[in-house]
């Protein structure tokens, strides 16, 4: 029964993302994997820090009101090894980023896919789980 369950998971292709994606905390306790939002905004700061990097963006709504968001990503070393160029995130650039919204109600989330101004895309963080 248990083996069947594991085999089923493997069959679903989960094996590639199932090794702990984050070294130091659980995803589900902080972020809602069922609430993937899309934000477009101007980069105000990038923290190349551990245990996670953070992209800070200002997002303007339809009425012109600006709200500031902070999106978590993989550690800098991991991003380097997945080919996420540090130079690709510059203050003042406009990006679109998908993110799993934080469960604490704040303007934070687990960043997933960044779309750069030239249309190219790159994952900044793991798939929700």
């Amino acid at each position: 029964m248990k083996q069947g369950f594991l085999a089923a998971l493997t069959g679903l292709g989960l094996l590639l993302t199932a090794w702990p994606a984050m070294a130091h905390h659980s995803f589900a306790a902080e972020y809602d994997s069922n609430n993937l939002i899309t934000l477009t905004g101007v980069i105000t700061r990038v923290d190349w820090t551990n245990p996670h990097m953070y992209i800070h963006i200002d997002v303007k709504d339809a009425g012109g009101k600006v709200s500031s968001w902070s999106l978590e990503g993989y550690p800098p070393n991991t991003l380097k090894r997945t080919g996420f160029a540090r130079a690709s995130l510059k203050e003042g650039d406009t990006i679109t980023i998908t993110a799993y919204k934080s469960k604490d109600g704040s303007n934070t989330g687990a960043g997933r896919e960044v779309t750069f101004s030239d249309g190219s895309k790159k994952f900044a963080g793991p798939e929700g789980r």
Partner: protein
Amino acid sequence: MSARIASFAITAAALIALPAAAPGQGRGGDKAPAQPVVHKPIPRAADGKPDLTGTWQGGGVSITGEAGAPPLHPLPPIDPHPIRREPLAYKPEFEAKRKSLTTLDDPTLQCLLPGVPRIQTMPMPLEIVQTPKEVVILHEAFRAWRRIPINDKLTHPDDLVPTWMGDSVGRWDGDTFVVDTIGFNDKSWIAGNGTIHSEKMHVVERYTLNNDGSLSWEATVEDPVVLTKPYVTGATLRAPIDVRIEEYECIENNPDPAHMKKAAELDKSNK
């Protein structure tokens, strides 16, 4: 709770399945032609022992890739290496304590050392440095390090004080490097959520090079205080291409505990 069990099971599935993962395999659907597994004699040190020296990694997106983003340097295929596993079995009084703990209690959330064997399951590389007298493991994750002096009787110093990573000694059992670790504190977790142990935890690891370039790792965890039988886990480590261990100062910028605490409070007030 079921989510926790599922998460644990998924991790377990990964540990089982990872070695069989072919390069570029994933949900993106890859029809790359299967490459043959290349076999060659395992590397040996000047003293004739298998040479474990090098950078190794068990998992993580940088070597496995993910849906829509294959790894920059796909690893060559390897043979399947079955992994022996025995589940965690807690005495009833400790099972209750274990269940009362949540991910908010996880020491690694505060950037504290994961202990052994958990350090081996972090999604980052480690480097093994082997000499005839000592094996050293440098982990990128949590900047952990382990000194493993080699002595055939596996004698530990008699002045141990409890620590997160314990005291390790090693010996060669044929071509397998056996590591015996005691002297733990009771603060780290064995595997995942709430998997507590006592200061009496005893971990025996076996490191064996395979002739397909991979490294098999198995850990047996005994704890006469909290467990009813040994817990056994393992993984197949790969030599990641163009990777060296680098700094990971976890405490640098860690807003996660505060977010999680607030999320838990909100969750509670909504019930």
